[in-house]
């Protein structure tokens, strides 16, 4: 690129001022040329623009020159002596017209903001309705499958159990173990002040079995498998696979949703059981270290502290949470529309809604159990 950068200057000719431009008028120098034009154009309108010395011209350069000489408007400055090789380009750019800038979108006002809040609220409401309707459709499809069990798809069920259950064991186990450790550590610290350190065992046992085991497992699974469901079904939606299913007379609910929900209903309780064990193990390790008891003493104390009821209170929530997470995952997946961007958006939404619903239902369960005094 040995070409000299473009230049433009005002020259006093025999019959008035004339603009003269030369060099390379290309996008590479556009920023500098833009400034140069702003400085030159301050003078009174020239009679003509002489382009004899222009060595390179591209559409950006031509546009800058066209704008400087207000082409296409009243009082346009005529162009002279443009090299023949640049003529077609100049014609083309000038044909695009003086006004090329698209209108900017209107700036947002306070009213827009209020309208957004309203729209958002309406969307939450209508989406809740849609989710309830989806649940209804799911129950109907489930009824059809129960009446004709041969239509149930076993292979995807097993695949999803493996993906959502077996593959989640390490992360669920590790998190539960660590939470058991933390509970015991904090509990022992607080209870020591009352000389009630030994009750750390009760605290760990009851909180892990009733709440922590199931809640942590459900949150991990919502993040891990709920999102995966949405992404899988969403991608199928984008590549029109879901439409293909429909045209073959296959119900996406039956083919996609039921195996996933069933798989999670099986794997989430099993994962919860595993999480309970790991949580109690973590608490036990910490009790042995801090409370000065042996591990067999810990097991003995645990046996007195918790009953089967505590265990079942936790476990009974697992299938409910499984249905919530899997349904939301499939629901958001089927709501994906067209673009890949919406897969990402819906996946985020699926995780947030899944965890939100899990916690809401956990609170409802607490109320229910306290009414039943369990």
């Amino acid at each position, binding site marked *: *690129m*040995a*070409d000299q950068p473009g230049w433009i200057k005002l020259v006093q000719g025999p019959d008035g001022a004339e603009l003269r431009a030369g060099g390379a008028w*290309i*996008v590479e120098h*556009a*920023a500098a040329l*833009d400034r140069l034009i702003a400085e030159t154009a301050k003078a009174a309108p020239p009679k003509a623009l002489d382009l004899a010395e222009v060595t390179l011209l*591209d*559409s*950006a350069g031509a*546009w*800058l020159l066209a*704008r400087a000489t207000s082409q296409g408007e009243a009082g346009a400055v005529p162009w002279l002596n443009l090299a023949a*090789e640049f003529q*077609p*380009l100049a*014609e*083309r*750019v000038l044909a*695009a*017209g003086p*006004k*090329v*800038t*698209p*209108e*900017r*979108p209107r700036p947002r006002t306070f009213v827009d903001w209020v309208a957004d809040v309203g729209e958002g609220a309406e969307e939450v409401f209508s989406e809740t309705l849609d989710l309830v309707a989806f649940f209804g459709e799911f129950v109907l499809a489930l009824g059809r499958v129960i009446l004709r069990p041969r239509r149930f798809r076993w292979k995807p069920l097993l695949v999803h159990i493996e993906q959502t259950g077996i593959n989640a064991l390490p992360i669920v186990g590790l998190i539960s173990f660590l939470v058991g450790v933390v509970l015991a550590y904090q509990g022992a610290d607080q209870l020591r002040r009352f000389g009630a350190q030994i009750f750390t065992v009760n605290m760990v046992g009851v909180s892990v079995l009733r709440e922590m085991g199931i809640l942590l497992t459900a949150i991990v699974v919502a993040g891990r498998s709920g999102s995966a469901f949405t992404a899988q079904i969403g991608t199928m939606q984008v590549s029109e696979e879901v439409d293909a299913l429909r045209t073959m007379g296959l119900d996406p609910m039956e083919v996609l949703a039921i195996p996933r929900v069933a798989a999670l209903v099986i794997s989430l309780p099993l994962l919860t059981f595993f999480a309970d064990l790991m949580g109690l193990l973590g608490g036990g390790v910490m009790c042995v270290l801090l409370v000065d008891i042996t591990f067999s003493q810990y097991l003995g104390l645990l046996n007195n502290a918790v009953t089967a009821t505590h265990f079942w209170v936790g476990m009974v929530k697992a299938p409910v949470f499984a249905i919530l997470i899997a349904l939301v995952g499939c629901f958001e997946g089927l709501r994906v529309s*067209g*673009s*890949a*961007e919406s897969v990402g958006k819906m996946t985020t939404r699926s995780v947030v809604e899944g965890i939100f619903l899990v916690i809401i239902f956990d609170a409802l369960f607490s109320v229910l159990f306290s009414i039943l005094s369990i």
Partner: protein
Amino acid sequence: MAAQSSNVIEIRGLVNRFGPQVLHDGLDLDVRRGEVLGVVGGSGTGKSVLLRTIIGLNRPAAGDIRVLGRLTRELDDEAWRKLQTRWGVLFQNGALFSSLTVAENIQAPMRERGDLPPELMEELAGLKIKLVGLPVEAGGKYPSQLSGGMKKRAGLARALALDPEILFLDEPTAGLDPIGAADFDQLIRSLQQSLGLTVVMITHDLDSLVTICDRIAVLVDKKVKVGTLDELMRDTHPWIQSYFHGPRARAAGIVVG
């Protein structure tokens, strides 16, 4: 710049292989300045891979590629980025960024340069939109609001954002109706002439080959055969024979009678 060579792209001894499968084996190809070169070939002969190799998305197993006189594999990052601004690519479905409007899409490569004032970028984006024959209002729309043909035009506008010297097109008329495809062919031809572009286009569209391509490169036997339509018509290679003498070729008016 123009004095160095009349070839803007020179490929020598290109080898591309994926596992045991060899796609290109000692492929040589020259693209001359200011021509429209059509690239054709059967499915799986590596048309797209050839294009991706030239623009640096695929690293060849062997061979030299010179683009605008520069040996691509010897360029450092800085020089490579500089070279990249001298070509534009239109991907098959436009590949517009879905989260940006058309005008913002066109400004994306300009923004990368970093020195253009925002108003000028807006104006240049508007100019490109007009150049590719879209209405000015299209600039404020998102890709999902555009039809397939408009998406291609918008993609073309983005490819032209930095006034490149070479334009790579991957099946520009695929998925367009015959009228839209003919319009798009004419658009490419007229832009090529007025902006002084060199165009390399992969295509399956025999009409495009007839109406706008100066020369045609056929991918056969892991190499290319280049020639004008007339020269290739006389070629005895069986694939080329059936390609240019098949029923569709007849429909496109290549074969008379």
